[in-house]
């Protein structure tokens, strides 16, 4: 059978101020009827450029360097604007990464589905409305009539992604491009969206291109997988075998880097002595002003103890209170309750003395806002060294510990990559010779391979300095690899606290159970 999409020897460059950057280099791919091809790569690999090239919506500074893109035998590159409009949205549709930005904030959700039907199937507005309602029902929206009239900000992330999917599937396309459709969603919602995509595929039987950075995830939805790096396809093989049998070194790296609950990276036990304890700690955010008054809760009555050298994983979705906990421990927000530390009781940020602040360090999620853009790495590291009895001469050693060359001391943050910035932030924390480091989603903004090397670095530092970690993440598989115990936060409360080994043994809070079900193992069999 002839392929739905076939790309041959396609090249693409971006030019800016005289320099050319090769985004896609000699790319060849085919997708057969009813087949889903997974395209896996990290940021900057060219996977989004390929989607843009197929949809013929390339940025103005791009130059195509030859090759063909054929859809059902027709040359997409030769099509004029008019022909393209009859292909886009009707025969090739796209599902986007972040539904919040892919939906127009000033149009109702229903309108954004029905306008596709009006344009491509020539339906009158009432017909399009009826059809759109049916489509919303089809993507399992509970009350389509109500949702139809709502605006994007009035819907949840999952509902919005369902609307995007409804618009994409409304005209029964022959090919659907899915660009990381679950990445911007929380774990449980993402799992449900994935389930929906699978079901629609089974019903409609369209061909698909599933783009993602997550090899484990793609191996569960795609038939075949292509791995892209630096604009080149480095490997292509069936999804069922790629994890077990990666041929290219880069694929092997990606397979190795994917967190797997069946693999332990932390091999030793935690110490027996308690290091730091929380006694019914609550964080409340008060937003009071002359003309407004509102209070919200960040965390409610949380109690637990971290032991010496323990890695305590904290998991929960955004808004579950896990970051409030981190900020309370770091003395950044006011809290009620008590923190017990080396036999003393700390009742508020004001009561945290230099010894406490030295011993408890924090590393933040966003590499971009974590370092002062107007300070060099040297200044960033010198300050905690001076404050906590270190010596500026230790900077090269600190940099070496986080595997950065000594000449990085003279650089500004904007001269560093995301992973390098996080290493500097880790070095800043370790400059204080801490006993507990709070890691607040520190790998969430990083690529998989970068995440693996940061995790490996953290564990090496722990081995060298006997540090304990409060490791906050939304990735249960990652926690299962590194933590001794896991604390599950749900709506501000601690609902589970148990050794990692007991996670899959059943007796857990329903929310924890749902998280486990939504964090499947990669296909290795």
């Amino acid at each position: 059978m002839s392929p739905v999409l076939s790309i041959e020897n396609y090249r693409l460059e971006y030019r800016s101020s005289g320099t050319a950057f090769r985004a896609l280099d000699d790319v060849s791919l085919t997708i057969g009827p009813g087949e889903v091809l997974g395209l896996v790569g990290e940021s900057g690999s060219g996977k989004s450029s390929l989607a843009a090239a197929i949809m013929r919506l390339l940025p103005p500074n791009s130059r195509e360097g030859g090759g063909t893109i054929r859809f059902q035998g027709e040359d997409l590159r030769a099509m004029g604007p008019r022909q393209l409009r009859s292909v886009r949205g009707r025969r090739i549709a796209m599902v986007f990464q972040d539904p919040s930005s892919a939906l127009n904030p000033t149009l109702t959700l229903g309108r954004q589905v029905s306008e596709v039907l009006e344009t491509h199937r020539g339906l009158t507005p009432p017909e399009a409305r009826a059809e759109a309602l049916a489509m919303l029902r089809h993507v399992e929206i509970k009350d389509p009539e109500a949702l139809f009239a709502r605006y994007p900000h009035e819907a949840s992330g999952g509902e919005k992604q369902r609307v995007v999917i409804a618009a994409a599937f409304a005209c029964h396309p022959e090919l659907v491009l899915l660009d990381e459709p679950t990445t911007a969603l929380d774990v449980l919602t993402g799992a449900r969206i994935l389930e929906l995509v699978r079901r629609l595929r089974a019903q409609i039987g369209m061909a698909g291109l599933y783009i993602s950075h997550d090899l484990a995830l793609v191996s569960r939805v795609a038939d075949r997988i292509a791995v892209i790096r630096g604009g080149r396809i480095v490997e292509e093989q069936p999804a069922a075998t790629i994890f077990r049998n990666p041929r290219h070194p880069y694929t092997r790296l990606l397979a190795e880097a994917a967190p797997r609950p069946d693999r332990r990276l932390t091999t030793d036990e935690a110490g027996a002595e308690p290091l730091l304890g929380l006694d019914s700690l609550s964080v409340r955010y008060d937003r009071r002003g002359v003309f407004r008054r509102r209070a919200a809760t960040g965390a409610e009555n949380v109690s637990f103890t971290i032991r010496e050298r323990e890695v305590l994983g904290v998991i929960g979705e955004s808004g579950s209170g896990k970051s409030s906990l981190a900020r309370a421990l770091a003395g950044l927000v006011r809290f009620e309750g008590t923190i017990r530390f080396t036999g003393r009781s700390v009742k508020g940020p004001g009561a945290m003395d230099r010894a406490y602040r030295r011993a408890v360090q924090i590393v933040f999620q966003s590499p971009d806002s974590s370092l002062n853009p107007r300070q060099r790495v040297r200044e960033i590291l010198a300050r905690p060294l001076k404050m906590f009895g270190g010596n500026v001469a230790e900077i090269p050693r600190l940099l070496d510990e986080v595997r950065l060359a000594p000449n990085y001391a003279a650089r500004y943050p904007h001269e560093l990559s995301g992973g390098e910035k996080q290493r500097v932030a880790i070095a800043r924390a370790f400059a204080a010779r801490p006993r507990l480091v709070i890691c607040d989603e520190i790998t969430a903004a990083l690529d998989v391979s970068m995440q693996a090397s940061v995790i490996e670095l953290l564990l090496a530092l722990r081995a060298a300095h006997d540090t304990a970690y409060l490791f906050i993440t939304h990735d249960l598989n990652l926690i299962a690899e590194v933590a001794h115990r896991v604390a599950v936060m749900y709506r501000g409360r601690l609902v589970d606290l148990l050794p990692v080994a007991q996670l899959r043994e059943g007796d857990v809070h329903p929310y924890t159970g749902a998280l486990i079900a939504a964090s499947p193992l990669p296909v290795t069999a």
Partner: protein
Amino acid sequence: MNGWLHQLIRTRHGVLGLIILAPVALAVVLGPQLAPNDPNAISFLARFSSPSFHHWLGTDEFGRDLLSRILVGARESVGTALSATLLGTLSGAILGTASAYVGGRADEAIMRTIDAIMAIPALLLALLVLSTLGKGATDATLAIAISFAPGMARITRSVALAARHQDYVSAAIARGEGSGWIVFREMGPNVIAPVVVESTIRVAFAVMLVASLSFLGLGAQPPAPEWGLMIAEGREYLDQAPWMIIAPGAAIALTAIGFNLLGDGLRDALNPRVGR
């Protein structure tokens, strides 16, 4: 901040702004020395001369050389604008930073009051202040500074608040830094750049305000060679000597364009995230 000048001359706007402002700066510093004639020398024989070799920009109704008047007047027109902006920026920045720092209800009250004061248009507020202070250049400086302060306070506060919520400030608080370090070392350098950009653009507005006040008869008084005043005087001779308006009008416009361009250039140059 190192090499920001170097950065500035790499932006197209910045270079253009500097090129336009260079002669303006020269006139402000050396205007009286550069002027070919005495700006107030009256010559009835040379009344209403059109631009010529002897009078490059022509003369006015008293035969005074317009080029000399513009060169000498630069110090008053641009100097007043600069000092008024500086004064307004400083007082506004202090108020805005303080408001952001104390936070809570006091901050909210200060900001609502500043919003309310900003309901009085700048020119109106300046006119009100002048109507009681009296007429003259010093009073105009003060009036413009007062009318700029609330806006600058608002901008400084929002920039400071944005900086306050950055993780590097959280990191400093978490390691127990004092407020002095946090305000001056962590937040300060990140707050100053946008404030400098805004106040540069405001100098352009101040130049126009100074001229407008003089034009309305409330700023500099005759026979001062202030640019706005020159236009007011030239208005009666629109038919016979349009250069009396075009010359000072062009001086005002070029200076304002120069500061607008310079501000846009600084905005790009002072952005730490743009490649160095």
